[in-house]
């Protein structure tokens, strides 16, 4: 079994890139792999607590909680979050906060990396 690190940069509420990364993470867990997720740029919103689940909108909070329970390490880029007015206390409990070298270190120790960049 291997380690997969997913870097989410462009994954917004309303973007299916967010859903993709969460579903890929779940599928990799189901196959017995270890998963790490790095949230940067606007993807930092993914781990915001108290997202209201409306039927018209993708809803990441529930999946984030499930992945955390199953041992996925999820880390927010601290600067990206603060720049958006998101404080650590406003994120889902269990989400780590760190700087960019966290992502590079996870990449170092990963067998596979899926970096979801772009806008």
């Amino acid at each position: 079994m291997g380690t997969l690190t997913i870097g989410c940069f462009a994954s917004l509420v309303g973007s299916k890139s967010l859903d993709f990364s969460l579903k890929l993470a779940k599928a990799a867990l189901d196959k017995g792999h270890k998963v790490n997720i790095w949230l940067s740029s606007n993807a930092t919103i993914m781990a915001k607590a108290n997202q209201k689940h409306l039927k018209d909108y993708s809803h990441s909070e529930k999946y984030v909680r499930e992945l955390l329970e199953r041992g996925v390490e999820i880390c927010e880029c601290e600067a990206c979050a603060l720049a958006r007015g998101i404080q650590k206390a406003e994120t889902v409990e269990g989400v780590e906060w760190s700087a960019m070298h966290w992502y590079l270190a996870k990449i170092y120790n990963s067998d596979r990396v899926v970096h979801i960049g772009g806008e």
Partner: protein
Amino acid sequence: MSVIEVGFIIQRPPYKSETSTLGVTHAISYQVVDMLLEEGQGVTPKVCFIGEGVLNCISGQKAMENYGVTSIESHIKNALLVDLDLYVCKEDLERFGISEDRLIDAEDMGADKKLQVVPFSEIQKILNNSKHLLVF
């Protein structure tokens, strides 16, 4: 107990979103990655500007003056100062008619490194040698 190369491919134009900036700043963070790794381990980023990404490399960017944000130029200079290898695709520069004297340089800040203009075939080799690839 080894150092791995990671390819950073910057292929989007500047300032459309944060993507180019984040490509360069994530590469720069290689400097402190050893804090989270074992003795002898490390990451060597190889930053490659291709396609519209080469448009990030034009000097004289007035982003702080106009938008109050650090320019991509400043980030690229910082990357050169910390001895990162940054490659710019020669064919794409020619396609867009950008002469090499328009490119960012950090010589005035004492950097030993320069942006390295190379044919795409060289970039392909760099990507072949990288353990992982990140496309920004």
